[in-house]
Protein backbone atom coordinates (compact mmCIF):
# COMPACT_ATOMS: atom_id res chain seq x y z
CA UNK A 1 0.00 0.00 0.00
CA UNK A 2 1.25 3.46 -0.90
CA UNK A 3 0.03 6.35 1.23
CA UNK A 4 0.64 9.90 0.05
CA UNK A 5 0.54 12.58 2.73
CA UNK A 6 -0.38 15.78 0.93
CA UNK A 7 -1.96 19.17 1.60
CA UNK A 8 -2.98 22.23 -0.28
CA UNK A 9 -1.46 24.78 2.06
CA UNK A 10 2.17 24.45 3.07
CA UNK A 11 3.17 24.12 6.71
CA UNK A 12 0.07 22.23 7.80
CA UNK A 13 1.98 19.21 9.09
CA UNK A 14 2.65 16.76 6.23
CA UNK A 15 6.11 15.91 7.52
CA UNK A 16 4.87 15.76 11.12
CA UNK A 17 2.24 13.21 10.08
CA UNK A 18 4.56 11.23 7.78
CA UNK A 19 7.32 10.92 10.37
CA UNK A 20 4.86 10.00 13.12
CA UNK A 21 3.16 7.37 10.98
CA UNK A 22 6.55 5.90 10.06
CA UNK A 23 7.43 5.67 13.75
CA UNK A 24 4.27 3.81 14.78
CA UNK A 25 3.80 1.73 11.59
CA UNK A 26 3.22 -1.92 12.49
CA UNK A 27 5.02 -3.49 9.54
CA UNK A 28 7.83 -2.92 7.06
CA UNK A 29 7.61 0.64 5.81
CA UNK A 30 9.55 2.93 3.49
CA UNK A 31 9.31 6.69 4.15
CA UNK A 32 9.85 8.73 0.99
CA UNK A 33 10.44 12.47 0.86
CA UNK A 34 9.04 13.60 -2.49
CA UNK A 35 9.03 17.27 -1.52
CA UNK A 36 12.24 17.54 -3.52
CA UNK A 37 12.26 21.35 -3.57
CA UNK A 38 12.65 21.46 0.19
CA UNK A 39 13.06 17.98 1.64
CA UNK A 40 12.90 17.90 5.44
CA UNK A 41 11.72 14.43 6.45
CA UNK A 42 15.34 13.46 7.23
CA UNK A 43 15.45 16.12 9.95
CA UNK A 44 12.93 14.08 11.95
CA UNK A 45 13.67 10.49 10.94
CA UNK A 46 17.45 11.08 11.07
CA UNK A 47 18.28 8.17 8.79
CA UNK A 48 21.72 6.71 8.28
CA UNK A 49 22.34 7.43 4.62
CA UNK A 50 23.57 4.32 2.84
CA UNK A 51 24.01 5.78 -0.61
CA UNK A 52 23.17 8.52 -3.06
CA UNK A 53 23.27 9.18 -6.77
CA UNK A 54 22.99 12.27 -8.93
CA UNK A 55 19.92 12.28 -11.15
CA UNK A 56 20.11 13.53 -14.72
CA UNK A 57 17.80 14.16 -17.63
CA UNK A 58 18.75 13.75 -21.30
CA UNK A 59 18.89 17.08 -23.16
CA UNK A 60 19.90 17.50 -26.82
CA UNK A 61 23.49 18.22 -27.82
CA UNK A 62 24.00 19.35 -31.42
CA UNK A 63 26.71 17.99 -33.69
CA UNK A 64 26.84 21.04 -35.96
CA UNK A 65 28.74 19.27 -38.73
CA UNK A 66 25.79 16.90 -39.29
CA UNK A 67 23.04 19.57 -39.01
CA UNK A 68 21.37 20.82 -42.19
CA UNK A 69 19.33 23.50 -40.34
CA UNK A 70 16.08 21.90 -41.53
CA UNK A 71 14.37 23.12 -38.37
CA UNK A 72 12.28 19.99 -37.68
CA UNK A 73 13.54 19.84 -34.08
CA UNK A 74 12.71 23.48 -33.54
CA UNK A 75 9.21 23.02 -34.94
CA UNK A 76 8.66 19.91 -32.83
CA UNK A 77 9.73 21.34 -29.48
CA UNK A 78 6.74 23.05 -27.89
CA UNK A 79 8.99 24.43 -25.16
CA UNK A 80 11.48 26.03 -27.58
CA UNK A 81 14.40 24.35 -25.84
CA UNK A 82 15.94 23.94 -29.27
CA UNK A 83 15.75 26.57 -31.97
CA UNK A 84 17.10 26.99 -35.49
CA UNK A 85 17.62 30.59 -36.51
CA UNK A 86 19.29 31.02 -39.87
CA UNK A 87 22.42 28.86 -39.88
CA UNK A 88 22.62 28.48 -36.12
CA UNK A 89 21.09 25.88 -33.78
CA UNK A 90 20.55 27.12 -30.27
CA UNK A 91 19.73 24.92 -27.31
CA UNK A 92 18.30 26.09 -24.00
CA UNK A 93 18.90 23.04 -21.81
CA UNK A 94 17.18 24.56 -18.78
CA UNK A 95 13.90 24.76 -20.75
CA UNK A 96 14.02 21.14 -21.93
CA UNK A 97 11.42 18.74 -20.52
CA UNK A 98 13.46 15.71 -21.56
CA UNK A 99 10.93 14.09 -23.91
CA UNK A 100 13.64 13.14 -26.42
CA UNK A 101 11.40 14.07 -29.36
CA UNK A 102 13.99 16.28 -31.07
CA UNK A 103 16.55 13.47 -31.02
CA UNK A 104 14.02 11.00 -32.40
CA UNK A 105 12.81 13.31 -35.18
CA UNK A 106 16.21 14.55 -36.47
CA UNK A 107 16.67 13.07 -39.98
CA UNK A 108 20.45 13.63 -39.87
CA UNK A 109 20.95 12.06 -36.41
CA UNK A 110 22.69 15.28 -35.50
CA UNK A 111 21.36 15.36 -31.92
CA UNK A 112 22.74 13.20 -29.15
CA UNK A 113 21.72 13.00 -25.51
CA UNK A 114 23.62 15.22 -23.11
CA UNK A 115 22.78 15.57 -19.44
CA UNK A 116 21.20 18.15 -17.24
CA UNK A 117 21.64 17.50 -13.54
CA UNK A 118 18.30 17.44 -11.78
CA UNK A 119 19.45 16.80 -8.24
CA UNK A 120 20.30 13.99 -5.91
CA UNK A 121 18.56 10.85 -4.69
CA UNK A 122 19.61 9.39 -1.37
CA UNK A 123 18.49 6.40 0.65
CA UNK A 124 19.16 4.76 3.96
CA UNK A 125 17.60 3.40 7.10
CA UNK A 126 16.11 5.03 10.19
CA UNK A 127 15.82 2.18 12.70
CA UNK A 128 13.38 -0.23 11.09
CA UNK A 129 12.05 2.46 8.71
CA UNK A 130 13.45 2.55 5.19
CA UNK A 131 14.25 6.00 3.89
CA UNK A 132 14.36 7.49 0.39
CA UNK A 133 14.59 11.13 -0.58
CA UNK A 134 15.11 13.45 -3.55
CA UNK A 135 16.77 16.84 -3.41
CA UNK A 136 16.42 19.21 -6.35
CA UNK A 137 19.56 20.98 -7.58
CA UNK A 138 19.52 24.67 -6.66
CA UNK A 139 18.59 26.50 -9.87
CA UNK A 140 16.63 23.58 -11.35
CA UNK A 141 13.10 24.71 -12.21
CA UNK A 142 11.29 21.40 -12.76
CA UNK A 143 10.75 18.93 -9.95
CA UNK A 144 8.60 16.20 -11.61
CA UNK A 145 11.51 14.69 -13.65
CA UNK A 146 13.50 14.14 -10.43
CA UNK A 147 10.38 12.93 -8.61
CA UNK A 148 9.80 10.31 -11.33
CA UNK A 149 13.31 8.95 -10.76
CA UNK A 150 12.76 8.82 -6.99
CA UNK A 151 9.51 6.96 -7.63
CA UNK A 152 11.26 4.49 -9.95
CA UNK A 153 13.61 3.67 -7.07
CA UNK A 154 10.63 3.43 -4.72
CA UNK A 155 9.02 0.87 -7.02
CA UNK A 156 12.25 -1.14 -7.21
CA UNK A 157 12.43 -1.17 -3.42
CA UNK A 158 8.78 -2.14 -3.16
CA UNK A 159 9.19 -4.97 -5.66
CA UNK A 160 12.28 -6.27 -3.83
CA UNK A 161 11.23 -5.93 -0.20
CA UNK A 162 7.46 -5.35 -0.13
CA UNK A 163 5.87 -3.47 2.74
CA UNK A 164 4.09 -0.16 2.77
CA UNK A 165 5.20 3.26 1.56
CA UNK A 166 4.60 6.64 3.17
CA UNK A 167 5.14 9.55 0.79
CA UNK A 168 5.76 13.04 2.14
CA UNK A 169 4.35 15.09 -0.76
CA UNK A 170 5.09 18.69 -1.69
CA UNK A 171 2.42 21.30 -0.90
CA UNK A 172 0.22 22.94 -3.50
CA UNK A 173 -1.92 21.41 -6.22
CA UNK A 174 0.26 21.82 -9.32
CA UNK A 175 2.38 19.25 -11.19
CA UNK A 176 4.73 18.34 -8.31
CA UNK A 177 1.86 17.69 -5.89
CA UNK A 178 -0.12 15.68 -8.43
CA UNK A 179 3.01 13.71 -9.32
CA UNK A 180 3.55 12.80 -5.68
CA UNK A 181 0.04 11.45 -5.11
CA UNK A 182 -0.89 9.92 -8.48
CA UNK A 183 0.61 6.48 -7.84
CA UNK A 184 -0.70 6.14 -4.30
CA UNK A 185 -3.54 3.98 -2.98
CA UNK A 186 -4.61 6.47 -0.32
CA UNK A 187 -4.23 10.25 -0.10
CA UNK A 188 -4.12 11.73 3.39
CA UNK A 189 -4.77 15.46 3.24
CA UNK A 190 -3.34 17.35 6.19
CA UNK A 191 -4.87 20.71 6.93
CA UNK A 192 -5.53 23.20 9.68
CA UNK A 193 -8.84 24.87 10.50
CA UNK A 194 -7.69 28.38 9.49
CA UNK A 195 -9.26 30.22 6.51
CA UNK A 196 -6.10 29.66 4.43
CA UNK A 197 -6.02 26.01 5.41
CA UNK A 198 -9.66 25.49 4.44
CA UNK A 199 -9.31 27.34 1.14
CA UNK A 200 -6.25 25.40 0.01
CA UNK A 201 -7.73 22.15 1.31
CA UNK A 202 -10.68 22.65 -1.04
CA UNK A 203 -8.28 23.24 -3.96
CA UNK A 204 -6.41 20.05 -3.10
CA UNK A 205 -9.64 18.11 -2.81
CA UNK A 206 -10.73 19.41 -6.25
CA UNK A 207 -7.35 18.62 -7.79
CA UNK A 208 -7.04 15.10 -6.40
CA UNK A 209 -10.67 13.92 -6.59
CA UNK A 210 -10.46 13.13 -10.34
CA UNK A 211 -7.62 10.69 -9.57
CA UNK A 212 -10.23 8.42 -7.97
CA UNK A 213 -8.14 7.59 -4.88
CA UNK A 214 -9.39 6.93 -1.38
CA UNK A 215 -8.97 10.19 0.52
CA UNK A 216 -9.21 11.28 4.11
CA UNK A 217 -8.36 14.35 6.16
CA UNK A 218 -6.10 14.95 9.12
CA UNK A 219 -6.81 18.16 10.98
CA UNK A 220 -3.73 19.60 12.60
CA UNK A 221 -3.81 22.45 15.13
CA UNK A 222 -7.36 21.44 15.97
CA UNK A 223 -8.87 24.09 18.23
CA UNK A 224 -7.86 27.19 16.30
CA UNK A 225 -9.88 28.83 13.54
CA UNK A 226 -13.42 27.93 12.57
CA UNK A 227 -15.52 24.87 11.92
CA UNK A 228 -15.55 25.45 8.13
CA UNK A 229 -13.22 22.53 7.46
CA UNK A 230 -15.47 20.17 9.42
CA UNK A 231 -18.51 21.32 7.47
CA UNK A 232 -16.68 20.92 4.16
CA UNK A 233 -15.57 17.37 5.00
CA UNK A 234 -19.06 16.44 6.13
CA UNK A 235 -20.67 17.89 2.98
CA UNK A 236 -18.23 16.07 0.68
CA UNK A 237 -18.37 12.81 2.63
CA UNK A 238 -14.65 13.02 3.31
CA UNK A 239 -13.69 11.13 6.49
CA UNK A 240 -11.69 12.95 9.17
CA UNK A 241 -9.07 10.37 10.11
CA UNK A 242 -7.36 12.21 12.96
CA UNK A 243 -7.16 15.48 14.83
CA UNK A 244 -3.89 16.75 16.24
CA UNK A 245 -4.45 19.33 18.95
CA UNK A 246 -3.06 22.85 18.89
CA UNK A 247 -0.55 22.39 21.65
CA UNK A 248 2.65 24.16 22.67
CA UNK A 249 4.32 20.85 23.58
CA UNK A 250 3.97 19.71 19.95
CA UNK A 251 5.50 22.94 18.61
CA UNK A 252 8.41 22.61 21.04
CA UNK A 253 9.06 19.00 20.07
CA UNK A 254 8.90 19.91 16.37
CA UNK A 255 11.36 22.76 16.87
CA UNK A 256 13.76 20.28 18.46
CA UNK A 257 13.46 17.92 15.51
CA UNK A 258 11.51 15.33 17.49
CA UNK A 259 8.77 13.18 16.07
CA UNK A 260 5.38 14.25 17.38
CA UNK A 261 4.21 10.69 18.02
CA UNK A 262 6.99 10.48 20.65
CA UNK A 263 5.74 13.47 22.63
CA UNK A 264 3.13 11.67 24.69
CA UNK A 265 1.33 8.31 24.85
CA UNK A 266 -1.85 10.15 23.82
CA UNK A 267 -0.26 11.47 20.64
CA UNK A 268 1.23 8.08 19.88
CA UNK A 269 -2.26 6.63 20.18
CA UNK A 270 -3.54 9.32 17.75
CA UNK A 271 -1.15 8.08 15.07
CA UNK A 272 -1.72 4.38 15.78
CA UNK A 273 -5.42 5.04 15.33
CA UNK A 274 -4.68 7.03 12.14
CA UNK A 275 -2.72 4.08 10.77
CA UNK A 276 -5.69 1.78 11.38
CA UNK A 277 -8.08 4.18 9.67
CA UNK A 278 -5.77 4.52 6.67
CA UNK A 279 -5.63 0.74 6.35
CA UNK A 280 -9.42 0.56 6.53
CA UNK A 281 -9.72 3.32 3.93
CA UNK A 282 -7.34 1.45 1.62
CA UNK A 283 -9.10 -1.89 1.94
CA UNK A 284 -11.93 -1.25 -0.56
CA UNK A 285 -9.58 0.23 -3.19
CA UNK A 286 -7.10 -2.64 -2.81
CA UNK A 287 -9.85 -5.21 -3.29
CA UNK A 288 -11.04 -3.25 -6.36
CA UNK A 289 -7.54 -3.56 -7.76
CA UNK A 290 -7.58 -7.27 -7.08
CA UNK A 291 -10.85 -7.55 -8.99
CA UNK A 292 -9.17 -5.85 -11.98
CA UNK A 293 -6.29 -8.29 -11.86
Amino acid sequence: MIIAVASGKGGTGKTTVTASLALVWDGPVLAVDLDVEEPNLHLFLRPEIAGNVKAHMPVPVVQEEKCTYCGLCSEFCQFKAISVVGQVVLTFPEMCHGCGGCMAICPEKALSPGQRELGEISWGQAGRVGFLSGRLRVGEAMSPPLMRQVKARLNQGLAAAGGDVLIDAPPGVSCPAVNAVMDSDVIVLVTEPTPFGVYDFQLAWEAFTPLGKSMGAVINRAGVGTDAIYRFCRDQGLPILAEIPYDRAIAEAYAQGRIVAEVSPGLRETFVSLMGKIRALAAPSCSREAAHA
Partner: protein
Amino acid sequence: MHKIAVTSEGPSLDDRVDPRFGRAAGFVVVDLDTMETQYIDNGRSQMMAQGAGIQAAELVARAGVRCLLTGFVGPKAFQALNAAGIQVGQNLEGLTVRQAIERYQSGGVDMARSANRPGR
Protein backbone atom coordinates in the same frame (compact mmCIF):
# COMPACT_ATOMS: atom_id res chain seq x y z
CA MET B 1 17.08 45.39 -49.79
CA HIS B 2 17.01 46.55 -46.19
CA LYS B 3 14.17 45.15 -44.10
CA ILE B 4 13.42 45.84 -40.48
CA ALA B 5 10.75 44.43 -38.15
CA VAL B 6 8.83 46.40 -35.54
CA THR B 7 6.76 44.76 -32.78
CA SER B 8 3.27 46.10 -33.29
CA GLU B 9 -0.18 46.03 -31.76
CA GLY B 10 -1.68 45.94 -35.28
CA PRO B 11 -0.84 45.61 -38.97
CA SER B 12 -0.26 49.24 -40.00
CA LEU B 13 2.44 51.86 -39.65
CA ASP B 14 0.09 53.90 -37.46
CA ASP B 15 -0.41 51.14 -34.90
CA ARG B 16 1.51 51.40 -31.66
CA VAL B 17 4.77 49.61 -30.98
CA ASP B 18 3.98 46.57 -28.84
CA PRO B 19 6.34 46.88 -25.86
CA ARG B 20 6.70 43.10 -25.67
CA PHE B 21 8.78 41.13 -28.13
CA GLY B 22 8.01 37.44 -27.55
CA ARG B 23 4.35 37.98 -26.88
CA ALA B 24 3.84 40.93 -29.24
CA ALA B 25 0.57 40.88 -31.17
CA GLY B 26 2.58 40.85 -34.39
CA PHE B 27 5.43 42.34 -36.39
CA VAL B 28 5.26 45.01 -39.08
CA VAL B 29 8.08 44.25 -41.51
CA VAL B 30 9.13 47.28 -43.55
CA ASP B 31 11.34 47.37 -46.63
CA LEU B 32 13.16 50.65 -46.10
CA ASP B 33 13.97 51.01 -49.81
CA THR B 34 10.35 50.91 -50.96
CA MET B 35 8.50 51.45 -47.63
CA GLU B 36 6.38 48.42 -48.45
CA THR B 37 5.01 46.73 -45.36
CA GLN B 38 4.10 43.17 -44.48
CA TYR B 39 2.44 41.99 -41.26
CA ILE B 40 3.39 38.82 -39.39
CA ASP B 41 0.80 37.73 -36.84
CA ASN B 42 2.25 36.42 -33.58
CA GLY B 43 -1.00 35.20 -32.03
CA ARG B 44 0.39 31.68 -31.60
CA SER B 45 2.73 32.95 -28.88
CA GLN B 46 -0.21 33.51 -26.53
CA MET B 47 -0.67 29.77 -26.28
CA MET B 48 2.92 29.02 -25.34
CA ALA B 49 3.83 28.38 -21.73
CA GLN B 50 7.46 29.24 -22.40
CA GLY B 51 9.78 30.05 -25.29
CA ALA B 52 7.64 32.76 -26.88
CA GLY B 53 10.66 35.04 -27.34
CA ILE B 54 12.67 32.30 -29.05
CA GLN B 55 9.80 31.51 -31.39
CA ALA B 56 9.37 35.22 -32.19
CA ALA B 57 13.07 35.42 -33.05
CA GLU B 58 12.60 32.48 -35.45
CA LEU B 59 9.68 34.31 -37.07
CA VAL B 60 11.50 37.59 -37.68
CA ALA B 61 14.66 35.75 -38.78
CA ARG B 62 12.60 33.89 -41.39
CA ALA B 63 11.28 37.25 -42.66
CA GLY B 64 14.86 38.17 -43.51
CA VAL B 65 15.13 41.32 -41.41
CA ARG B 66 18.41 42.91 -40.38
CA CYS B 67 17.04 44.85 -37.44
CA LEU B 68 14.25 44.63 -34.86
CA LEU B 69 12.67 47.61 -33.10
CA THR B 70 10.72 46.92 -29.91
CA GLY B 71 10.22 47.74 -26.25
CA PHE B 72 11.74 44.96 -24.19
CA VAL B 73 13.68 41.82 -25.06
CA GLY B 74 14.53 39.03 -22.64
CA PRO B 75 17.88 37.22 -22.54
CA LYS B 76 16.95 34.05 -24.45
CA ALA B 77 15.23 35.98 -27.25
CA PHE B 78 18.20 38.32 -27.41
CA GLN B 79 20.55 35.37 -27.77
CA ALA B 80 18.41 33.95 -30.58
CA LEU B 81 18.20 37.32 -32.39
CA ASN B 82 21.95 37.67 -32.03
CA ALA B 83 22.49 34.21 -33.51
CA ALA B 84 20.37 35.23 -36.47
CA GLY B 85 22.47 38.36 -36.92
CA ILE B 86 19.57 40.68 -36.17
CA GLN B 87 20.33 43.97 -34.45
CA VAL B 88 17.95 45.06 -31.70
CA GLY B 89 16.68 48.56 -30.89
CA GLN B 90 14.89 48.63 -27.53
CA ASN B 91 12.83 50.99 -25.36
CA LEU B 92 10.66 52.23 -28.25
CA GLU B 93 7.32 51.63 -26.51
CA GLY B 94 4.88 54.52 -26.63
CA LEU B 95 5.66 55.37 -30.26
CA THR B 96 3.78 54.36 -33.37
CA VAL B 97 5.48 51.95 -35.76
CA ARG B 98 6.02 54.86 -38.18
CA GLN B 99 7.62 57.05 -35.47
CA ALA B 100 9.90 54.19 -34.43
CA ILE B 101 11.07 53.73 -38.02
CA GLU B 102 11.64 57.45 -38.48
CA ARG B 103 13.70 57.56 -35.32
CA TYR B 104 15.72 54.58 -36.55
CA GLN B 105 16.32 56.21 -39.95
CA SER B 106 17.44 59.47 -38.36
CA GLY B 107 20.01 57.56 -36.32
CA GLY B 108 18.18 58.03 -33.01
CA VAL B 109 18.05 54.35 -32.00
CA ASP B 110 21.05 52.78 -30.33
CA MET B 111 21.56 49.10 -31.04
CA ALA B 112 21.43 47.07 -27.84
CA ARG B 113 24.36 45.02 -26.58
CA SER B 114 22.22 42.99 -24.22
CA ALA B 115 18.68 42.18 -23.15
CA ASN B 116 16.80 44.79 -21.15
CA ARG B 117 14.53 42.37 -19.30
CA PRO B 118 15.55 39.70 -16.83
CA GLY B 119 14.83 36.10 -17.78
CA ARG B 120 12.29 33.94 -16.02
